[in-house]
């Protein structure tokens, strides 16, 4: 992956503001955003997957990215913790400021970045180890060795992920013995064990039944007190249920971004209207 260093990083406060003709369909007026994305474009080889996206993500809120398959929402999500770095042949232009600093800056240590910006994937992917070890793994990598401290982290993380009561008597059983919904909550517990600021969720419920989905959605509401959540979802009902802000992407472009209720009741763009009313293509 390459990040052209010619891209100037806008200093904080130099972001175009209301006076500079902000587009209300793209700018719900986020105060003190945790992320500011500026003109982000991404190419896989010759193919451009993201086009000049600028967006601000609010802290301690749930932001949903919606759009049809192939619109770039998962690719975009993976930019926030530089997961696309792992792919060959990817070129990114533009910038993402996290707490005011570019995540592409050479001073940024990628493991620290990914500790602060955790991720949960579509398919739950617990390690083939015990429930306890799944949670303790991250903190250990980050230098926590004291057993009592690890016990505390495991309990706190499992409680935060609303899983503690279900697994407290079998912490040393293999995590692969948990149900799908429990495994996904374990992955959320694992993500928050390292005390991130942000959790990225890529279709976290697409393999779950409605009850397990409801538990994850409920959990997201609890988590947003302490974390910023960004969720990619195919389900517009899920986006409208759980998120505070919704961004609609189409063909790699950000079409509309706004307060969720507003976007689902009275979208500003025809493309958004057509997509959420199912009259697309």
């Amino acid at each position: 992956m390459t990040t052209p260093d010619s891209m100037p990083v806008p200093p904080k406060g130099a972001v175009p503001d209301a006076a500079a003709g902000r587009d209300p369909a793209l700018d719900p007026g986020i105060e003190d955003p945790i992320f500011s994305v500026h003109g982000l474009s991404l190419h896989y080889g010759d193919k451009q997957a993201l086009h000049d996206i600028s967006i601000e993500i609010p802290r301690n809120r749930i932001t949903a990215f919606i759009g049809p398959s192939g619109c770039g929402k998962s690719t975009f999500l993976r930019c926030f913790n530089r997961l696309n770095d792992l792919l060959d042949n990817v070129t990114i232009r533009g910038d993402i400021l996290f707490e005011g600093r570019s995540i592409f800056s050479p001073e940024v240590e990628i493991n620290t970045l990914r500790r602060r910006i955790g991720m949960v994937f579509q398919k739950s992917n617990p390690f083939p180890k015990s429930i306890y070890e799944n949670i303790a793994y991250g903190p250990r990598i980050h230098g926590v060795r004291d057993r009592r401290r690890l016990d505390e982290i495991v309990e706190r993380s499992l409680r935060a992920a609303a899983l503690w009561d279900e697994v407290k008597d079998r912490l040393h059983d293999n995590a692969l013995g948990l149900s799908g919904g429990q495994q996904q909550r374990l992955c959320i517990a694992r993500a928050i064990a390292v005390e991130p600021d942000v959790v990225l969720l890529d279709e976290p419920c697409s393999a779950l039944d409605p009850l397990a989905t409801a538990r994850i959605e409920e959990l997201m509401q609890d988590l947003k007190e302490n974390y910023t959540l960004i969720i990619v979802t195919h389900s517009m009902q899920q986006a409208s249920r759980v998120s505070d802000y919704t961004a609609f992407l189409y063909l790699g472009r950000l079409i509309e971004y706004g307060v969720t209720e507003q976007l689902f009741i009275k979208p500003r763009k025809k493309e958004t209207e057509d997509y959420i009313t199912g009259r697309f293509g």
Partner: protein
Amino acid sequence: MTRLERHYAEQLEEISSKLMRMGGLVEQAIESALDAYERRDAELAQRVRDADVEINRLELEIDQLGLETLVRYQPAARDLRFLIAAMQINTDLERVGDIASNVCKRVQELCEEPPWEAPIDVPGMGRLALRMLHDALDAFVSGNADAARAVIARDEQLDEIMEQAFADLLQAMRDDTAATSRAIRHSFIAKYLERIGDQATNICELVVFMVEGTVIKHPRLTVESDGTAPGSRGAP
């Protein structure tokens, strides 16, 4: 379009056409009620009352269709606004149907009494109210928010006419106590006709919501994002 998408579109279409049919029946009920008043035709009044069942039936059908559409398709954006507006207009129209029946009951009572030179213009008031309702439904069909706002502005005229009618009827009662019961029945009718204007106004407010997504009823109140109006929270 997939089969489901087609069914969804048809369902919305059917709600719209049933609502229009209901609107037509309601307008006809008001017209007939005014005819019955002018001609002192108790039989016609009875026919209007009997026909109200058809309006009520349509109300139930539209309720059912609306509920089904909500459950099956969870509409959003313009479809959601249309459906919310249509279901509330359904209730408003059913109520206008009831009002037409109420006018007819008073007409039947008046037919039992000697003819009376009322000091108010019932047919004139009725035509104003009917015009408002007709234009409100036109605004709904054409999705014209400006036309809806223009109808709302006319409601004040009907309110003023009703105020004047009350004053004139009160005077008539003072002048001729033998006419008291007829005057009271006329004041009911005046109030009913004024209510039709209010229902037309409601419909127009829903049309503005449907078209623009903005809520214009109760302009002095705003609603917080948790759904409460400021100052509406009770003591803890």
